[in-house]
């Protein structure tokens, strides 16, 4: 089925797209989107499609289009569930097809054809919640109307049962398969169709397995790396090993003689300080196989020029952060009077926490197919942001965006890395220069050494407590490498916004709260990494509360519950708002604490840690039990994770995301760090960037969903932030050793040896 065919746009009810910045969380949500084309003269009753999203075949199988990129978060199952629910069909009759990017040029700019497309900030489901249900409901309304006309009865007398329109409670019925031809010819009703009450859901809220898994386990699923186009040539790029380095000269004589090599091309990277359309300056090889391209790339002789960042190092970075924290920074939040409250406080607690740079390392290395033709281009990309891919190709080639066709593949992991379409721009540059259809392939080394890394930072936390042990003043001072560094049109005074979310807990629960920011300009590119600044801030805040409790003789759970206070909506202006209800966190905390039997005394060397965090609208908590041996051997004994995502549309994949997020958080806390020396990233592959393996994951691992209301929140990022602090709090409970620097690595063993 080709959904991208030249269907006319019927109603002009679109949001003008193109405003969203690639890599940001602004996804350009459709305020109102036409669900379907109006029937055109060319349509006949042979047509079996209802709008852009639904096709019903003769046997009653329904193919539903999924408009969002599938990166492992489960939207390709969850979104069709929404359509199927309202359309009223049996889930086993559903097939899913991936829709391409749909943008249409109008007088006012570009509009979305299939609704806003792009996944980041855990919005893939929530931003399509109304829309995709409406897609199903409108199609159902069309089918009922077709049946009513056939029977010559008022449509009000018609209803449906799965797959059928029924007349007056079952006197007669017609299958959707019989009706779709005439339904396809009907005008859509002007008003939106009524949606089901949550109590009537048959599909939403019931666990469903991922629709793609049979293809995945048989090796048939097609990722970007598995895609191809006619006449394809393969490319690899040698990028500057030094941050902001440039090609001075290169010698390709030997390389051009290597078997399979077709061309060698110069790829212009951004100048220091410029926005990263691509990450680095370099030289590309085009060959007749991926292996030949990678081999030839490695054999290139390139002389690199001086770079202003040639002496950047992690050591200097941390030194600079420590130095900056001694001075005065930019005060970005100042509730009450922190200085007065601190000077009146009975007790002070002060600690510093260090969170490293990390890489995304999705298991499918970056790759992309681009064929730049004279006035058009064809792109096949594993991307989280297909409109960004279209913009990237337009910028690099000058081709009008309406002539750039972007297909999305299944994606071997996103984690925020594929919000950036730098690899798409690279492939477009190579295709444009060579005139060939190009498939660009990155190696794992390319990926670890060239990334938009999660920003590193040093946090100084200070609390003042009164004589009753209540926290009366709170300050967080952060020196870090902002994610917004080198973004276009980004004033310096806004750099903090990517790193400190001012409405996060414990704001509005403590009267005097201050946040202060210092920006560190190290030359590493940075970007969004799953649950961006929440990962660092949850670690810091949840560790610090634990420390306050221990330093002042309070129980860590009790102190948390007291600080969270009663259940009520608090104003929350950051992404995930408009409100945050601390009571939902308390409920989760109490739940995981009970499950892990928090109050039970543990034997020496064992302990339990807790943490909870609100992330982009969703709530999660962790309780982790560990043991630490005499020699500092860490064993994670048990993990209890719980999430409150409002309504869990597909509980099966909500649990999967909670499990995966937890492991991501722990994996990163245990061993992952990107460091720089002499202007070069020092890690290169999984031997020195050691993702967690199964041996470190306890068999005792529970993931729970605590239902809340009838509105879903996203779930892709909520499982991460509280995992690391629950782990380090557990380590403290077990061993008395406080982890204030991530990753944990061999800190426990070192402390024992010292």
């Amino acid at each position, binding site marked *: 089925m080709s959904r991208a065919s030249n269907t006319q746009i019927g109603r002009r009810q679109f949001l003008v797209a193109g405003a969203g910045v690639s890599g940001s969380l602004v996804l350009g949500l459709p305020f109102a989107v036409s669900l379907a084309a109006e029937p055109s003269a060319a349509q006949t009753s042979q047509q079996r499609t209802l709008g852009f999203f639904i096709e019903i075949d003769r046997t009653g199988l329904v193919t539903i289009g999924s408009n969002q990129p599938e990166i492992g978060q489960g939207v390709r199952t969850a979104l069709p569930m929404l359509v199927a629910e309202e359309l009223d069909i049996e889930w086993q009759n559903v097939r899913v097809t991936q829709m391409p990017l749909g943008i249409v040029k109008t007088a006012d700019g570009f509009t979305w054809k299939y609704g806003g497309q792009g996944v980041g900030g855990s919005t893939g489901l929530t931003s399509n919640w109304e829309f995709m249900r409406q897609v199903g409901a409108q199609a159902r309304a069309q089918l009922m109307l077709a049946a009513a006309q056939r029977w010559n009865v008022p449509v009000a007398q018609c209803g449906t049962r799965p797959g059928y329109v029924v007349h007056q409670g079952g006197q007669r019925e017609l299958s959707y398969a019989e009706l779709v031809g005439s339904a396809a010819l009907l005008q859509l009703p002007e008003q939106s169709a009524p949606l089901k009450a949550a109590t009537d859901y048959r599909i939403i809220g019931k666990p469903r397995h991922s629709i793609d898994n049979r293809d995945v*386990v048989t*090796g048939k699923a097609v990722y970007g*790396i598995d895609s191809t186009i006619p006449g394809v040539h393969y490319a690899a790029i040698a990028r500057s090993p030094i941050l902001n380095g440039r090609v001075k000269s290169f010698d390709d004589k030997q390389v051009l003689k290597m078997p399979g090599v077709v061309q060698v091309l110069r790829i212009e990277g951004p100048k220091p300080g410029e926005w990263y359309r691509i990450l680095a300056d370099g030289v590309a090889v085009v060959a007749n196989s991926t292996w030949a391209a990678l081999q030839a790339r490695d054999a290139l002789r390139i002389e690199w020029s001086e770079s202003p960042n040639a002496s950047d190092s992690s050591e200097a970075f941390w030194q600079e952060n420590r130095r900056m924290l001694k001075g005065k920074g930019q005060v970005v939040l100042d509730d009450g009077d922190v200085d007065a409250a601190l000077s009146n406080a009975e007790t002070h607690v002060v600690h510093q926490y260090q969170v490293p740079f990390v890489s995304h390392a999705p*298991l499918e*290395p970056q790759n992309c197919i681009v064929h730049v033709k004279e006035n058009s281009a064809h792109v096949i990309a594993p991307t989280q942001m297909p409109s960004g891919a279209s913009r990237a190709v337009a910028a690099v080639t000058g081709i009008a965006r309406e002539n750039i066709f972007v297909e999305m593949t299944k994606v071997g992991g996103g984690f925020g890395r594929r919000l950036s379409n730098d690899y798409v721009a690279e492939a477009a540059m190579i295709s444009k220069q060579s005139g060939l259809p190009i498939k660009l392939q990155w190696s794992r080394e390319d990926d670890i050494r060239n990334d938009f890394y999660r920003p590193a930072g040093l946090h100084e936390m200070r609390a003042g407590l009164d004589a009753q042990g209540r926290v009366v003043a709170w300050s967080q001072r952060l020196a870090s490498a902002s994610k917004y560094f080198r973004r276009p049109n980004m004033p310096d005074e806004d750099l903090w916004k990517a790193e400190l979310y001012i409405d996060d807990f414990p704001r509005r629960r403590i009267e005097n709260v201050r946040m202060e920011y210092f920006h560190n300009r190290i030359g590493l590119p940075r970007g969004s990494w799953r649950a961006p600044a929440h990962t660092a801030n949850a670690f810091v805040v949840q560790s610090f509360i634990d420390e306050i409790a221990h330093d002042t003789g309070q129980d860590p759970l009790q102190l948390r519950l007291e600080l969270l206070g009663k259940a009520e909506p608090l104003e929350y202006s950051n992404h995930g708002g408009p409100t945050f209800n601390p009571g939902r966190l308390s409920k989760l905390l109490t739940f995981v604490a009970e499950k892990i039997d928090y109050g039970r005394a543990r034997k020496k060397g064992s302990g339990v840690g807790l943490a909870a965090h609100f992330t982009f609208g969703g709530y999660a908590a962790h309780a982790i039990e560990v043991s630490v041996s005499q020699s500092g051997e860490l064993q994670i004994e048990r993990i209890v994770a719980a999430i409150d995502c409002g309504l869990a549309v597909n509980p099966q994949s909500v649990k999967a995301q909670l499990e995966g997020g937890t492991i*991501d958080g722990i994996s990163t806390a245990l061993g992952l760090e990107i460091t720089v020396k002499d202007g070069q990233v020092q890690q290169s592959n999984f031997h020195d960037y050691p993702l967690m393996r199964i*041996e470190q994951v306890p068999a005792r691992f529970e993931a729970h969903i605590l239902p809340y209301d009838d509105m879903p929140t996203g779930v892709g990022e909520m499982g991460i932030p509280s995992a690391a602090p629950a782990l380090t709090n557990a380590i403290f409970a077990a061993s008395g050793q406080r982890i204030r620097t991530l990753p944990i690595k061999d800190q426990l063993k070192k402390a024992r040896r010292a």
Partner: protein
Amino acid sequence: MISFRLNKVSVAFEAEPGTPLLWVLREHFDLKGTKFGCGIGQCGACTVHVNGGAQRSCVTQVAAVEGQNVTTIEGLAPADDSLHPVQQAWLSHDVPQCGYCQAGQIMAAADFLKRFPRPSDQDIDQHISNVCRCGTYVRIRKAIHHAAQLIASES
């Protein structure tokens, strides 16, 4: 020319004998289920069977499989429309997230279960070293135990 058996069919490969088996499978024989993850034998995304034993095809030169039997994820099931018990168990536990590592995980588990038909958690910890970036390990462990039962009840 290098000749070997690939998913029970005799095949030959003419180009560079030093090419990793991974790229020969993917680009020459168009068997794309075997994935590229690291290229240095670390992650296991490229796991295939050579004479029934799991091997990482990114660090196996195609010349090394001359005369051998190579099985990829596409050839693991006994017949086209059937599934290997490990694949069945993977479906029952809904293991994959992005799914990219899973062909390699399944190939590794299928070989492992031949050597450890009734594995303990410790056996799994010691012998399954494939990386999953999405963190599906909890389900992989359950699915391996489940597959062991399926295999035992089949025979």
